Every structure is written in structure tokens, then in C-alpha cells.
């Protein structure tokens, strides 16, 4: 689309005196300026917390606790990052990475199998099964958190990372299945028919023909599932001990116990917890948007 419809609109409107619109009064240049002004405001508002954390993380301890607050680090230093990584934060980081990566992997394997069945195979009670999966994902985690704690406690997993990996792997499933189904439904059926003519089994065609075609979709889904696990808080808060705190839990607990002394370290931890996600978003913005809308479920 070479010509933006927004710039052609005023011309049409001005030729019709009956149309009430202020648009023709503004010159295209002013419109453009307003547009970018709005864009600037949106960017500042959306990124403000991250920018503030970034600035604070580069400040010296004196600067972070000065009154009134220092707005710009005069002597930028990375000492907060070093302190964070050498202290407990480093361990929380590792916990978050392990828990999120393993859970995402398990979720993806199980969800891919299920999504293929839902998207491609014919069987009875399919709708019911899918409704079951979807509706379960909408239940409040509070309806599950207590008995799950008892179950995990019963097998002595509380305080290990498995106490997070097990629930995360399961609770990521519905969203992942819906997203993968959307990607699978875009693959033309003819490919599987051709594979069948070549003597491949259904499963063989799925693994060797269909899966390679939805690799971008698999990747997108994995990213979204990963973000969900990385950001999870309620289960992590209930099922971890100091040794297995994840990043969000560690940061909140640090903030509630040592809030006044450690702004810089805290901010460094926050920046480090956000940066991988921001990088993924900037790289995969378009794919993530389409993936999220197909799944269209959870925050």
C-alpha cells in the first residue's frame, strides 16, 4: 500500500460540504507532527518504568537515596549489576531460567501433540475435549493453589524447582494448544495427502512434513509460553524457599525487606529480568502479535 488512506481522506471530505469533520482544517504536515507527537507520548508512557529502572541501576548508592531523587546518573557505574549477580539475585536468575526453560520445553512437546490431534484428526467429542481444555485455563489459580501445595508437599518437592516445573508445564498447555492449532490450520491439507500417497503414516507425515512447516509458529508459541512462565508469581511465591526463589519472587521479597538500602541492585535485577523479554519483543513483534491473538487467552 503506497498511499496511506489517512492522507487521501481529507481531500474526499472537503469536496463534500455535508460531511462534518475538522480534518481538512489541519494541513497534512500538522497531522504528521501530531501523529509523531502521539507516538512519542505513547513510547514514553509505556517505557517509563523501564527507563527509570535503567537509570537507577546505573546510579551510585548515594544517588539512589538522595532527596530529592537524582534523575540522571552523574557517574554511571555497573557496580549494581555486579553486586546483583554476585549476590542472591544471580541465583534467582538461574532458578528462573531453569524453571522457565524446562517447563516451556515440556509444554511445547505435549501441546504440539494435542494441537495436531485437534487441528487435523477426526474423532468424536472433539469439541467437548477442546472446551474442557479452554475452560480449565480460565479458572483462577487460587482454585488450585492449595491442593497443589499439598500434593507437592506430599512428595517432598516443595523447595525444589520441580515444584514450579510441574505446574508450569501443565498450566501453559491450553494457551499453547490454541496457538499451535491456529498455526497448524494454516498448513494446507494437501501436503499430508501427498505424504500419505508416498506411503508415510499419519504420525510420520506430522513429524516430517507438517512440523517443519510451522517452525516459526512453534518458536512464537514457545516464546509466549516462556514469557508466561518467566513472569509467574503466585505459584512461585507459595512453592519456593529461599534456595529456589525465582526472579520476580526474589525481587519483591528484597524490595519488601531491604527496600531503602538497595535501590540500585534492585533496579539492576529488574532490568536484567526484563531485558531478555524486551529483546525478544523487538525481534519478534509481528509474530508475537499474531500468536497472542490466536491463543487470545491469558495475560
Amino acid at each position, binding site marked *: *500500500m503506497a498511499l496511506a488512506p489517512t492522507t487521501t481522506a481529507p481531500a474526499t471530505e472537503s469536496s463534500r460540504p455535508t460531511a462534518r469533520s475538522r480534518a481538512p482544517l489541519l494541513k497534512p504536515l500538522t497531522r504528521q507532527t501530531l501523529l509523531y507527537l502521539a*507516538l512519542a507520548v505513547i513510547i514514553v508512557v509505556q517505557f517509563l518504568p523501564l527507563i*527509570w529502572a535503567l537509570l537507577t541501576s546505573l546510579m551510585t548508592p548515594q544517588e539512589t537515596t538522595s532527596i530529592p531523587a537524582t534523575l540522571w546518573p552523574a557517574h554511571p557505574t555497573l557496580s549494581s549489576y555486579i553486586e546483583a549477580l554476585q549476590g542472591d539475585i544471580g541465583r534467582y536468575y538461574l532458578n528462573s531460567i531453569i524453571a522457565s526453560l524446562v517447563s516451556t520445553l515440556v509444554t511445547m512437546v505435549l501441546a504440539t501433540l494435542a494441537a495436531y490431534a485437534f487441528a487435523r484428526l477426526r474423532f468424536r467429542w472433539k469439541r467437548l475435549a477442546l472446551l474442557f481444555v479452554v475452560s480449565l485455563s480460565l479458572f483462577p489459580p487460587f482454585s488450585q*493453589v*492449595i491442593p497443589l501445595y499439598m500434593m507437592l508437599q506430599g512428595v517432598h518437592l516443595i523447595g525444589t524447582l520441580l515444584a514450579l516445573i510441574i505446574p508450569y508445564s501443565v498450566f501453559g498447555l491450553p494457551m499453547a494448544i490454541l496457538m499451535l492449532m491456529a498455526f497448524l490450520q494454516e498448513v494446507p491439507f494437501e501436503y499430508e495427502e501427498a505424504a500419505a500417497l508416498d506411503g508415510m503414516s499419519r504420525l510420520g507425515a506430522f513429524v516430517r512434513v507438517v512440523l517443519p512447516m510451522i517452525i516459526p509458529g512453534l518458536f512464537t508459541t514457545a516464546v509466549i509460553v516462556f514469557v508466561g512462565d518467566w513472569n509467574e*508469581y503466585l505459584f512461585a511465591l507459595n512453592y519456593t524457599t529461599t534456595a529456589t526463589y525465582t526472579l520476580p519472587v526474589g525481587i519483591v521479597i528484597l*524490595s519488601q525487606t531491604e527496600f531503602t538500602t538497595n535501590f540500585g541492585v534492585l533496579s539492576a535485577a529488574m532490568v536484567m529480568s526484563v531485558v531478555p523479554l524486551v529483546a525478544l519483543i523487538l525481534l519478534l513483534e509481528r509474530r508475537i502479535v499474531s500468536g497472542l491473538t490466536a491463543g487470545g487467552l491469558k495475560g
Partner: protein
Amino acid sequence: MATIGAPLLQVKESSPRGPLERREERLAWLMLLPVILALLALGVYPVLSTLWFSFQQGGSFGLGTTSAGLANYLRLLHDEQFWSALRFSLLYSLVTVCGQMLCGTALALFANRRFRGRWLARAAILFPWAIPTATNSVIWAYMFNDQYGLINSLLEHLGLLNPAHPIVWLGSAQLATLLIYVLAIWKANSLVALLVLAGLQGIPEEVYEAARVDGASRWQILWRVTLPLLRPVLLVTLILRTIESLQAFDLISAFTNGGPGNATQNLGLYIYLQIQQFGDFGYGSTIAVVLTAITLLFIVLYMRTLLRTSTR
């Protein structure tokens, strides 16, 4: 075109006839088995167990409880803190979901225009979704800290605030509640914007073209064409956001932790207080059952909306 739950709508029922179809059906259930079993064990069983726990009392952290009959539910009736938490949950959902729908739709309409740097607008829209809710709340709490915070400092630099009398943002029930609303709207704009954006992209250009030929102004096109066509998407988004808002926990827990006093305590925080601080799994479960029941209303609504769209 991606609409919410689109995969669900494309699913067709069929019953197997020949041996080939029966083999296909067997394969399907084999592939579904792990997921179904996992969801039954870690999804359905806990929900039922929570229901059972709501009829238990005493004990500590779920051990050594005895049957309570309806005692927990009767206790709810006279529990002032429960009613205040319920009130907060409902009001919070009402205000923040309305705010999210308005701001999210506006953002989507903006990002749907064609201009250089549109990807930047979309990335900016996406950002609050990706930042961990709990971590983000800590940053906000720091920004609104009365002494070292960015906001007071900015106001002081602009000469709008006397440094000797800082605004104690999180110390006042009204201000803290207001900030939670702002934060919640800021945080979940993204999701509304994403879903609406997908809906917008599904409206063919010819529709706008036709409206313009008929002499409709931009404003008229928005109200008479765009928004009515978005209705199904908006409806589903509204329901999903409501479900999610009723379950809020991370955002408030890490921001005010229910304070000052219990001014910003919602149902989630109250459940957490019961189970973690008092180890009262019975009463905690009872409140969780209430929360689930409210959510269930909206889940049914969601399913009905989806199914009605699909039969059309």
C-alpha cells in the same frame, strides 16, 4: 484472519465409520492422552479438592483438618474483611476493565494507521505485557516512593511540590487505590490493544472505501462502521479481561500488599493471607470457592459467546 478462539470455531465433529477412521481416532486420543491426564490431575482434581477443603476447618497448612459442615460459609457472612475484599475486587474489575477497553482500543486504532515507525508503536504497545507484573509493581512502588521516587522528584523539580511536604502516594487509601487502577490499566492495555488490532486487520479496506464514497466523516466511520464491526472482538475481550481482573494478585501484592491497612486488599490477597499467614487452608479454600464461582459465571458467558459466533 485471527480472531480470539478462532481455532475453536473451526473444529468440526465427526464420527468414525470405517476401520481407517477408527485408527485415526485411536491416534488422536493417544496424542491427547498426556494433556488430558495432566489437566485432570493438576487442573481438575485441585479444583474439586479446594471445594472439599472449603468444608474443612482447623489444622495447620491443611494437615489435621476436621469436617466443618457449612461453618466456613457462615463465617463468610459475618467477615467484614471478606466483604471489603470482595467489594474491592469487583470495583477494581469494573474500573480497570473499562479503562483497559478504552485505552486499549484507542491504542489499537492508533497502531492500525499506516505510518513510518509503526513497528515502534506496536513494540511499545506490547511492552507492558512482557514485563513481569510483580517486578513491574516494584518499579512503580519505587517511582511513587514519597522520598526517593521519580514522580515526587519531578513535581519538585517543576516547582509543583514543596520538598518538605512530599505526597505520600501509597500511604493514603484513596491515592493508593487510584494508583492501582492506573497501574492495572497501564499493564493490561496491551492485551486489549492486541486483540482489537487483530480485529481491525480483519475489516476489509472496501468497507471503509464504501463508507467514504457515501460521504461519511472519519468520526462517523469510527462510530458507525469500525466499532460495530469490532463488536464480537470487543465482547470477547471484555469477558476475558473481566475474568483476569477478578483473579488479580501479583500486581497488588507487589505494589501495596493490600495496604495501607486493608484498603487495597482484594479476594486474591485475602486468600493468600489466610493460607500463608494463618495456615488456614479450610477458610482460604472457602474464599477461593467464592472467587471461582464468580469467575465461572464469566467463563460460561465466554463459552456461550464463542459458540454462538461459531454456529452463525
